[in-house]
């Protein structure tokens, strides 16, 4: 079975005030088909973890490792990681002027598969996925994320998830900015991917509501750059009711 294994990960970022340590020893094991939710206060380092997995050049890994089926991910370039089966649905997807969604999707699919997709089947797949996500076909000809609303950008991320078929996906606040209907549509997209490809999911969120649609197997509480508690779905409910106070007072190193 496929596994994404994060061990004692320490990550820092260069800021104008100097080096800032963000992740302070993250341990996490995600198996194929599993869904792990990560919840934690603003600024605790959740997106940093997501970026570190994807290989964003701003985030420097000081120590630790990320293994995908035993292979070190940290020594791979960003695109190699994607080709190895990792996917990041970003909290703030980037606009790419001049590049149409159609062209972008085909280029990405070709890069990931190592060969161009058969044209007929591919066009049909794109159409079906867009229809499933209730995306207007006109989006196919628009430039990637350019002028998309917040919710449209999130759908576009899940569209890519469905079409690129990664083995593990990190969803960074894919639920924020979505209205109730969109939340349902996007969640169904993630669930389809889980069903069809046995996708392992690391789902970063602030809200329990998405977890009603995407059932987590594990919930992790993330505070001050590390996981401080783990549990099942019931932990998410408790966090939503109680907040993070009890963790913040317990951990003096916050901030």
């Amino acid at each position, binding site marked *: 079975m496929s596994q994404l294994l994060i061990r004692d990960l320490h990550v820092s970022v260069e800021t104008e005030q100097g080096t800032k340590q963000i992740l302070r020893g993250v341990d996490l094991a995600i198996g194929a088909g599993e869904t792990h939710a990560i919840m934690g206060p603003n600024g605790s380092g959740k997106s940093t973890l997501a970026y570190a997995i994807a290989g964003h050049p701003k985030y420097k890994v000081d120590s630790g490792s990320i293994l995908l089926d035993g292979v070190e991910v940290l020594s791979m370039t960003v*695109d190699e990681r*994607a*080709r190895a089966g990792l996917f*990041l649905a970003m909290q703030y997807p980037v606009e790419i002027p001049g590049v149409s969604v159609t062209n972008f999707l085909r280029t990405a699919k070709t890069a990931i598969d190592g060969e161009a997709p058969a044209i007929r089947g591919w066009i049909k797949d794109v159409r079906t996925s867009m229809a499933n996500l209730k995306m207007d076909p006109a989006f196919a000809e628009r430039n990637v994320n350019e002028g998309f609303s917040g919710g449209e950008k999130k759908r576009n991320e899940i569209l890519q998830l469905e079409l*690129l078929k990664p083995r593990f996906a990190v969803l960074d606040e894919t639920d924020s900015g979505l209205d109730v209907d969109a939340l349902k549509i996007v969640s169904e997209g993630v669930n389809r991917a889980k069903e069809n490809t046995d996708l392992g999911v690391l789902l970063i969120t602030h809200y329990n509501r998405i977890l009603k649609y995407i059932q987590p197997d594990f919930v992790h509480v993330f505070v001050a750059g590390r996981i401080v508690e783990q549990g099942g779905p019931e932990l998410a409910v408790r966090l939503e009711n109680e907040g993070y106070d009890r963790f913040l007072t317990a951990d003096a190193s916050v901030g």
Partner: protein
Amino acid sequence: MSAVTTAKTDASQEASAATEIAEGSSTRYTPIQSRSERFTSADVTDFGPALSYDLEWKLTPIARIADLLDAALTGAPAGVTLPTQDGVSAVWVDRDDARIGSAGLPEERASANAWSHFEKALAIDVSSEIATEFVVTRTGLGLTPRAAHTVITAKPFSRGLVILENSGDANLSENVEIVVGDQAHLTVVTVQEWSPESNHLASHFARVGRDATLRHIVVSLGGGVVRVNPSIHLVETGAATEAYGLYFANSGQHLEQRVYIDHVAAQTRSRVKYKGALEGASARSVWVGDVRIGPDAVGTDSYEENRNLVLSEGPRADSIPNLEIETGDIMGAGHASSTGRFDDEQLFYLQSRGISEAEARRLVVRGFLTEIVHQIGSDGTEARLQAAIEAELTDSATNKQEK
């Protein structure tokens, strides 16, 4: 609106003084001297030396083109290959040919220097009434400073596509006249793929007739200093032009284009769209877009646009639109200008979808420039240029990752 009129025997001196004032008062869209009032002459001795603070030359590295401004240029025809084609004639004619001077006269010294020194002009007449493609290639000119002169005449009702393809070494100042007869539809494309040592200064003068259309496309990829300045005069009712440009400046290259659209007659229409990519520390581009809507040009519809895409640290792109409107009764007049960066976040996003850095840059540049390539209307030239543009991407990362 323009107000200053001066005796213009020494135009460059006067213009430079005016420029300083215009800059100081930051009235960028209303030049103090109307473009239509600029001094013109075919005789280089009528122009003073080019100075680094002249309006005309302040953005150009004049030291690199001193020969073309000041030397006695070699004026004999060189390096030109002409095809034979039904409906198009191309012949070398003497200086006293009636066609010469029919579209315009030099406004600056390098253009006048070329005019003063060319010996024979290439006269291309398009008479075909079915769309015809005519490709003039010019190569192997060498680095001797040269002058050239071309007159392209589209007969009334004719339809044609004339492509001027330039490659190899050159040190050339030239004038290209374009006369578009009533109801004719002409496309003129000039492609610069010169060697890095080459310099090329070109002034294109066009007169567009009644209900006629000129499509004009400047593609500058290769060369050291390349400056192509089209002046398109819409002189009869219903005349229209689409002026496109595409440039890719790498380190050491200065690619400049000064576009002037002169709406003289009523119901005239213009669209200007220039797009450029820049990569490399000393890559440099200049786009100046002057649009004048004259007092009789009622019902004019005009829009000009320049977009630059910066692909690395260091390049500089100047983008200066100027709009001069002398009648209140117009359909529309607008301009847009922007310089954007292909930044690290965009690169990260594309890479995070499995796309290599080299492919990501190609994807973005292709997406940005293809629109202009597709305006040419010749499949062969379009395909060749698409490949040439991608070959311009010279990032070290590209070399690293390419197999």
